[in-house]
């Protein structure tokens, strides 16, 4: 066995130095375009299903994405929870049939009262946005899934 079998190949030290530099390098090209690329990405419209609303003068639709964002914004200020996921299921004629809200609960937070509050808040919000004060609570099930806990 040759004595220098374990020696690094020639040029390896310089290569390592060059790689270390590249790892921390930010291309000027990225700096120049970053704000524009972010804005363009955020302007893209997510495909989403429509949800039917009612108004005295007729029907309208709201995208599930807009509803999702509004539910998130509604619940975000509550320090007892963090919203993880919001899913809507619609049936015939885009009528809302189910809303699922998945949250992480703050550590030591009583869960049953929290679930009741979230359910009540989201149901009231959906009735308001969809223009149906009689939207039955039983028909629109707001399920709370506690999938994580966190320290507030």
């Amino acid at each position, binding site marked *: 066995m040759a004595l220098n079998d374990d020696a690094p190949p020639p040029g390896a030290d310089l290569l390592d130095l060059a790689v270390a530099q*590249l790892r921390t390098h930010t291309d000027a090209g990225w700096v120049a375009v970053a704000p524009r*690329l972010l804005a363009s990405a955020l302007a893209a419209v997510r495909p989403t299903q429509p949800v039917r609303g009612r108004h005295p003068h007729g029907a309208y639709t709201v995208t599930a994405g807009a509803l999702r964002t509004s539910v998130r914004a509604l619940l975000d200020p509550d320090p007892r929870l963090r919203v993880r996921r919001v899913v809507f299921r619609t049936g015939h004629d885009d009528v809302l049939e189910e809303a699922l809200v998945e949250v992480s609960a703050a550590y030591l937070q009583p869960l049953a009262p929290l679930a009741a509050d979230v359910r009540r808040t989201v149901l009231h919000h959906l009735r308001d946005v969809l223009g149906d004060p009689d939207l039955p609570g039983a028909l629109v099930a707001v399920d709370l899934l506690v999938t994580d806990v966190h320290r507030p």
Partner: protein
Amino acid sequence: MLLERAALGDHAAFAVLVERHGPSLYRYARRLLPSAQDAEDAVQDALTAAWLGAEGYRGDAGVRTWLFGIQTNCVRRAARRRAHVPSPVDDPGEGPAAGRAAPGDDPVERLLVTDLRAALDRALLDLPGPQRAVWLLVEVEGLSYADAAHALRTSHAAVRGALERARHTLSRRFAAWR
């Protein structure tokens, strides 16, 4: 958590993700595509796909790996659209701070660093595209062999083999660089 928030329509959360990972995605794409414009287009496509697809993220890979998987797909599509004429990265500086020396900065050392990085960018052109992608993901972006394999939709063994060949080629190039 940021990606979950982005899936809920949180623009600020997505902006943080882009701030964290954007420079790496661009650095990767730029060294796989012929021009800065090609890299910009590929990163634009990747960020848009990430925003649109955030709801579909299921956590089977880390967020960084997931993003590099999307970026790899966008780079491959861009490379197929264009006749690949490799050109070295021509990066005049390091963003807004380019040309401004930090206090105590040694201009000779700064020049050496820039030359060394430029030499590496030129040496990378000696690698075939798949080897270059593997080397960039593992050596520069710090992905594990498994994560690189996931992002590139290839096997762990293929990543290991490509990396060995890439290291050998690049070391030989730098042996001649003095």
